[in-house]
């Protein structure tokens, strides 16, 4: 069976999403690259979406928008009458008294118009998925009656889509937030879109979502907000310069674009500067629009509009026989809910922070796609891939937790890395597996420990121990250590590496965040110490190998520097900088031996490949054998 797409068929904009690899993905329009498509249709030339919008003013009688307001309604309906006054295209009394649209003498039902939008979304989805799409879940407002739902379903069928289900927009939003998995909750969905406002109260129990009450204002949305801001800019400019920007189409267009941009920017910034040089002319002189708009000012302008949403919310709660504090969760839908003032107003009313982590323009389509996934059998527990909640690491020299599988990795997964020994003739290594975000092993949770022995005696850094972390789909971690020389292998199976409770994961992440700075400092110091120790070992070996070939003076110098490095690195309170400086000093002096002995192109014989050098040491091995054994 093919994919079932989810479609949010909106009054102003529409959006389509699909489940991909168990996750909802919003599909961008092929022509614009944007995730939403204007619900605008010119049926004669079949211009749908942005392209239809661009010729709207020129072809206003033939360009249909807000067709959703007519869907499944009778011509005598109050809402239809209101729409007739609002739109430039002709709405007529159609078959069986239903509202139709007449264009160039031909009647179109609202379903046919909506079908054009659906067809475009279907095409975009097919281009994205790479296969034919034949089925969809389409959303409708919770207040839609049977006739309106039926009409929406017909629109889907006209578009060549089998409508697997019509679901309520607030229900889809709740699905997108995974609310269906909650036990028993009461949810409010606050949906402030481009042209309409809807508020719904849902009750969830046993995976069933029920709309308890719904209310709203069919003529309140982002467009009203834009208009208020544009009016303010125009009137300010007039006050200052005596020129009406509304009279100049081009200037007015620029103000509208600038106002929309300012509105969006003021969601993040506290003040924006509107700069539109050469916006118009007065007596042959160019005039510039330069204006500062603060968030406070803008909020003052739109305050009344925001307050207008509260009354429907109160009525809705009353119908649901609930108080504001009975609501467990509030979900925000629609682009306008990005405005901080809207969020604040909603928060104050309900006394809790609203959910807004899912993109409010896309959340309904995402929920529809999830429903489609469930119906298509794609969303099943068995398919849900788990992720590692915390980083899985191995302890290396100096107690450093060296990450093997980073957190948020999708399982099953596997990672192999080769480590070596920290001291000469070391015959066994101890593998310590830890879990957590802190850079030091001691601060993380130890999941398991095991020993690989029987490594043939060899100088430090020579043996190669391959460590494999393998986590299967059910979260069972197998850690295997293998001596590459002998092929000797040991392993450990750890269960429960995924299965932490949410609280546990959260606590550990918070802890890591809290200690981030000091931890990093600590890790840096250890790294510096390890580097210092490695160089000391190299230097001592070089001195021994060089014997009499090196000038006694140089030798003495090196010995002195070695002593210095040991001293600095050995002290607990030495700073990273001090250690690094001493190490560098030694390294510079040491190169003299190399030059004397092997000529410029050769490295000192004792120096190991870079990887091992980094962590090599024998400095601390005497006191902390376990931690010093496995080195990168």
């Amino acid at each position, binding site marked *: 069976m093919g994919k079932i797409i989810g479609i949010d068929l909106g009054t102003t904009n529409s959006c389509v999403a699909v489940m991909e*690899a168990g996750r909802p993905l919003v599909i961008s329009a092929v022509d614009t690259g944007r995730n939403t498509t204007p619900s605008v249709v010119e049926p004669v030339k079949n211009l749908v979406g942005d392209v239809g919008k*661009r010729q709207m*003013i020129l072809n206003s009688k033939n360009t249909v928008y807000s067709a959703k307001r007519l869907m499944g309604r009778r011509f005598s309906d109050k809402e239809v009458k209101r729409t007739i006054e609002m739109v430039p295209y002709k709405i007529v009394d159609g078959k069986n008294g239903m509202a139709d649209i007449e264009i160039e003498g031909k009647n179109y039902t609202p379903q046919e118009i909506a079908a054009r939008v659906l067809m475009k979304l279907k095409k975009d989805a097919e281009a994205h998925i790479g*296969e034919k799409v034949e089925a969809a879940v389409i959303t409708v407002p919770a207040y839609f009656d049977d006739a309106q739902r039926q009409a929406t379903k017909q629109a889907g069928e006209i578009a060549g889509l089998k409508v697997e289900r019509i679901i309520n927009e607030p229900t889809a939003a709740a699905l997108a937030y995974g609310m269906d998995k909650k036990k028993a909750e009461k949810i409010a969905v606050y949906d402030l879109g481009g042209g309409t406002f809807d508020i719904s109260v849902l009750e969830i129990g046993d995976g069933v979502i029920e709309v308890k009450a719904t209310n709203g204002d069919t003529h309140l949305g982002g467009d009203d907000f834009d208009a208020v801001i544009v009016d303010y800019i125009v009137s300010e400019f007039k006050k200052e310069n005596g020129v009406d920007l509304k009279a100049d189409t081009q200037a007015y267009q620029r103000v509208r674009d600038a106002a929309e941009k300012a509105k969006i920017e003021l969601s993040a910034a506290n003040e924006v500067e509107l700069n539109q040089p050469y916006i118009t002319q007065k007596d042959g002189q160019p005039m510039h629009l330069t204006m500062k708009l603060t968030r406070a000012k803008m909020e003052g302008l739109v305050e009344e509009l925001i307050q207008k949403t509260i009354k429907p919310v109160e009525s809705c709660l009353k119908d649901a026989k609930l108080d504001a504090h009975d609501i467990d969760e509030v979900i925000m839908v629609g682009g306008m809910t990005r405005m901080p003032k809207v969020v604040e107003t909603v928060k104050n009313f309900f006394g809790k922070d609203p959910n807004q982590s899912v993109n409010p323009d896309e959340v309904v389509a995402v929920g529809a796609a999830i429903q489609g996934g469930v119906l298509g059998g794609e969303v099943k527990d068995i398919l849900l891939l788990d992720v590692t909640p915390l980083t899985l690491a191995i302890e290396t020299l100096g107690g450093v937790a060296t990450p093997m599988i980073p957190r948020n990795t999708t399982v099953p997964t596997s990672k192999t890395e080769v480590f070596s020994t920290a001291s000469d003739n070391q015959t066994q290594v101890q593998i310590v597996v830890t879990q957590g975000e802190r850079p030091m092993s001691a601060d993380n949770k130890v999941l398991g420990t095991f020993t690989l022995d029987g490594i043939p005696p060899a100088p430090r850094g020579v043996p190669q121990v391959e460590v494999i972390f393998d986590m299967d789909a059910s979260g069972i971690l197998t850690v295997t250590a293998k001596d590459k020389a002998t092929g000797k292998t040991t392993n450990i199976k750890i269960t429960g590496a995924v299965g932490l409770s949410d609280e546990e994961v959260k606590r550990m992440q918070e802890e890591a965040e809290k200690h981030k700075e000091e931890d990093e400092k600590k890790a840096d110091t250890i790294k510096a110490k390890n580097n210092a120790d490695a160089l000391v070992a190299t230097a001592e070996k070089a001195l021994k190998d060089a014997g009499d070939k090196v000038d006694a003076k140089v030798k003495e110098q090196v010995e002195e520097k070695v002593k210095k490095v040991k001293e600095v690195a050995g002290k607990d309170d030495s700073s990273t900088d001090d250690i690094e400086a001493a190490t560098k000093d030694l390294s510079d002096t040491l190169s003299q031996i190399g030059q004397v002995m092997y000529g410029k192109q050769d490295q000192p014989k004792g120096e190991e490949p870079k990887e091992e050098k980094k962590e090599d040491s024998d400095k601390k091995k005497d006191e902390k054998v376990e931690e010093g054994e496995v080195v990168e």
Partner: protein
Amino acid sequence: MAKKTKPVGDKVHEELETVKGMLARALADYDNLSKRIERERQDLSKIASVGLVVRLLPVLDNLESAQVHLKDQGLAITVGEFKKVLDEEGLTEIKPKVGDEFNEEIMEAIEVVKGVSDNKIAETVLTGWKFTDGMVVRHAKVKVSNK
């Protein structure tokens, strides 16, 4: 015995089919994802420049407006250099001429004015820009005449 084992076999068979289906789906998803990433990678450099270009174009517009008033030679050179950079990025201007037919693919109508014929460009108020291969970065804003 046979009666007893059959339902179990059926169940296993059923589960196997389900899992097979899921595997096929996952593989298909992966395959399509790979293809899409390849496609998107090719477009990536273009997409990356679009975002920047869209923000820079209004600045160019202002420079050009300034030039209309100032008629400064230095500014003329600057505007020329600016356009040269866009040209090197594969961008060309959409500059409909008066009397051209309106084309919603590359233009946006912002006003309708009275004229002698329908759907003809009366004035280009804002130059558009597109990539040479056709992708429109900004639609030209035009006034269109209608009888």
